[in-house]
Every structure is written in structure tokens, then in C-alpha cells.
């Protein structure tokens, strides 16, 4: 589950999910909300790999991969099969070509969080828009 938090100039994304993989899935869903909907068309699949020293930075790196695909391939993600490893994420991302507005410039490390919460996981990430 994700929600957008009020922030004067940027967009702050707050996620609560039962598993770490679900946090990454929710981040994709939130980003898809920003850049969607896809145009009608054939499904496109991308393999995405990213590395980072900790889970919070890995979540940022995951979103950065999606931003890169939106900006260079006009790719609007729809769903992903996500595998997490120590310091890495590997995913098969399905989506379609769209007309993604260039709303997100980057993923910041400001107030970046990825931590256990109530038997699940909580994450927070501020996007520069």
C-alpha cells in the first residue's frame, strides 16, 4: 500500500507492505500512477537489475531504473516479478509504451527509509519533481 505525503516542493512516497518485494511492487505502482496510463499497444518486457549498499538505496535505485526507462523508452510499467538479493534487485518488468510525462527528475536520498514495521516493512522516498 502506498500514499503520497504533502511536501512543499517535492513528492514524498510512503509505502507499507507485508514483504520487502511488495515494497518494490508498490513503488512501481506509485510510479506507474505518475507516468501512466500506457497507450494501447503491444506489451513490452524489460529486465531490470540494480545494486546498492542497503535496502533503502536499493529502492531508490529501483525507481531510478523505472525513470530511465520512462524517459528513454517511453515505457510505462504495469507489473513486475521481483527477486531481491543482498545488495541487489533483479526484475522482469512488464508494461507498454506510453506518453509518460517527465514528472520525476530523480530519486533523492532525503529522509530515505526502509525498515521493519509491525511484522511488515515501511519505506519512504522523496522524489524530485
Amino acid at each position, binding site marked *: 500500500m502506498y500514499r*503520497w505525503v*504533502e*511536501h*512543499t*516542493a*517535492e*513528492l514524498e512516497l510512503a509505502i507499507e507492505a507485508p514483504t520487502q518485494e511488495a515494497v518494490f511492487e508498490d513503488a512501481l505502482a506509485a510510479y506507474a500512477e505518475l507516468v501512466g496510463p500506457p497507450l494501447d499497444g503491444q506489451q513490452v518486457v524489460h529486465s531490470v537489475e540494480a545494486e*546498492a*549498499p542497503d535496502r533503502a*538505496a536499493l529502492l531508490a*535505485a529501483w525507481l*531510478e531504473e523505472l525513470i*530511465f526507462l*520512462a*524517459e*528513454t523508452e*517511453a515505457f510505462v510499467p504495469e507489473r513486475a516479478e521481483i527477486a531481491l538479493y543482498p545488495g541487489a534487485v533483479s526484475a522482469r518488468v512488464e508494461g507498454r509504451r506510453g*506518453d*509518460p*510525462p*517527465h*514528472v520525476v*527528475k*530523480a*530519486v*533523492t*536520498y*532525503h*529522509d*530515505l527509509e526502509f525498515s521493519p514495521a509491525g511484522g511488515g516493512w515501511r519505506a519512504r522516498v*522523496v522524489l*524530485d*519533481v
Partner: protein
Amino acid sequence: MSEQLRRIDETLWEIPASSRADMRVPARVFADVELLEAIRGDQSLEQLMNVATLPGIVEAALAMPDIHQGYGFPVGGLAAMELPDGVVSPGGVGYDINCGVRLLALPLAEPELGGRREALVHELSRRIPAGTGRGGPLDLGPAELDAVLRDGPRALPGVSPGDVERTESEGRLSGADPAAVSERARQRGHSQLGTLGSGNHFLEVQRVAEIFDPAAAEAFGLAQGQVTILVHSGSRGLGHQVCTDYVRLMDASHARYGIQLPDRQLACAPASSPEGRQYLAAMAAAANFAWANRQAIADGVRDAIRRVLGSDVGAATRQVYDVAHNVAKIERHGGRDVLVHRKGATRAFPAGSEEIPAEYRAVGQPVFIPGSMGTASFVLAGEPGSMERSFGTTCHGAGRRLSRTAAKRQIGGAELRRQLEAGGIVVRCPSNKGLAEEAPFAYKDVDRVVDVVQRAGLARRVARLVPLGVVKG
């Protein structure tokens, strides 16, 4: 916070370095009572105090009256670092490296534009791609992109020497190294030259509504009633990626340099370190790309003018100046070289500075302060107080007051469009939602911001510009 904040003079407040154990210098903000109240409504001052903890910071972490909460550094903040070992922080420049403003002056007054205004705005929206990562008029090959990264606008065909001369740093920061720019940044940027981008980027057709300083206005080539076009854009995806790459690199280097930070987004490294030097080389390249981007946009603007108003008008459209408001530069202040980070702040060198074009040297460097969409913008000139009090710096805009969500809650894009058009402003925007996010009431009062920097002696008003039409990114 209130007990820590003390008033220094009419327009300057200070949070002493003793307020927090990790602050190395005080945090100072230029404001008036009303603006300060708004500033205290978000985390701006806490973020400014965080900046005051950075290794090598000189004198104070400073903020302009348009300060608002950002990430890491506040927007509207500046910090000067001692050299060679003070830090450089990519977040202190921001993701949109060399976001900035260029002003073009047309050789005609508003009545002469007359009924062709809507056609001009429409043609501008056709010529200048806005919104997403849509490609621009130029798709650069690797060698062409290298040339732009090294040399900025000079690398583009047919650029007039006058445009280059009337650009901050003549559109080229030294030390730019294309090899320091990642392949991913190049992929994001190679087709984006000449594009506006989204968010708060825009093109505005304006009228000079008021002249405050006739001598400076004349030097800048501005007259009452004259039509101007203001361009607000930056380094697009290329700059965003450069910042992303180096925040990550520096985040991983803190242990090596013994750096501890209150906010991870303040990631930094000594300017003299391999990471610091590499970032400065990449940032300079991205800054040069941004100047080339605004040059390519200006070329598109002149094309639109030629088509709608005639080739003579296009040829006589003169660039007043181009200023950066997200950049880090080595400058001499107080008898020593320092690395000045400006994030949402504008260089404002006074009369006599050799860094500004000879034709403006008697009046001071032009500074452009875009107001929010649909409200007034200002042309200022740098004043000596900027060198004494703010490392040669003034404000950059109105500064956000409301979040984008809050703005959209208060007005729909269609209604805002109707209101702007009812006020006589022609609007072209790819998205009603994006339009609502930039509603004028989401920003602080630009008149008040400019009043503070004038009273503080950082810059003075030269002219006030009001919108006739806007193309929003």
C-alpha cells in the same frame, strides 16, 4: 526554533552555530516578518542548519527570502566552501544542474504585437517541445554531445557571439570533462537539447510594465511597453542523471573521508578528492549542456518570431542575459577562492565586476526573477551588498508556498486556464493537472521577495515584466 532565531538587522535573521552541536557556522536567512512566518511553516530552516554542518563551510549557511523546503539543501540556499578541502555536495547544486533563466528582448512594443500575440504563443508551443522526455530539434551524435558538454552554446551551429557574451560565464564553465558524464546521462540527454522539460519550467511572452532604474534598463536594452520572452529551463535528464550518479558515489565515500551528515541527501566529498574533482568536471559539463539547451530554445523562439512577426523582428531579437540558479562555482570572495554552491539562488555581481559583460559593467549584472505563472517577473541588477553579505548572490524566484497536491485541491487546471485567459494571458500547456500544480497562489509573493533583496542591498529593481502568454512545460 523561535528561541534560536535572532534578528540581526531589518532583513537578516540568524540561527547561531551554538544552536546545535554539529553546526560549524551560523545559518542566516534574508527575509521580512511575513516571509519568515511562511518559511517557518516547513523544514527550510532545519535544512539550512543541516547545511551549516558541512565540512569546510565558510561564514554561514545562507538563504534567500524565496527559501523553501527541498531535499538536503533548501531551495533558495547557498553555501561557500573553503578550498581545496572543503566539500562539494551534488545535492547543493540540485538535480537540475544549471537550471536558469534567459531573457530575450524583441524590437517592438506590445501594441505592435497586437492581434498576433496568440499566434506567437501558439507557434512557440509548436517549436519548443515541452513536457516529457520528448526529443528536441537536435539529436546529437557522441562527438557533437562531447562538444556541447565541453563548450556549451559555442558548440552549436550559427550561435551569435552576442548571445555567448551575454551569458553568465559566457556559457562555459572551465574544467568540464565529458568523460565524467555517465553513458546513462548521455542517453537521457542526447535528444533533449532545445526542450523545455516539465514542472516549473516555462516560456513566457511578457511586456515591460514598469521601469524602476532607467539607466540600467537602457543598458539592458529594455524600454517601457517592450515585448520580452523569458525562458526557464535547465539541463534536462542529462543533469538529473549526473546528480543522481554523484550523490550515489559520494554516499559510498563518506567513511573514507570521515564525513558524518544529518541528511543522507547532503552527500559530499572534499572538492580536492577524486570524487569531488570528478563531480565538478561532470557538473561543469552538465552546466554547459544547460546553457546550450537554453540557446537551442532561444533559437526556436527566434524561429517562431520570424514566422509570426517577420524575419526582421527575429533577427533584431536580442538576448539580454542568461543566468544560472543551480550551480557550484569557484569564485573569489574576501580575498580567497571559495566554492559557492547556489541552489535556487542567482549570482548578482555588482557594477565594476569583470565577470559581467562590458556593456553592463557600469550598472551591474542582470538578474531575472521569474514570478509564478501569470504574475509579474523582475529584472534586477547586482549590488555591492551581495559581495559583502551573500557571496555575490540574490534570490531566484517567488519560492513555493503550497505543495503541488494542495494547489490542485484548491483549483482545477481547466478553471485556472480560464482565469488566466480571462486575465488576458494566452496559455499553452500539455496538461491541465500540471497547470494547476503551478497555480500562482502556490507561490510566495514575488514583489515581497524582491523588496527584501533590494532592502538587503543584494540587488535592485530595474524593471517589472507582466505576462502576455505562457507556454508551460
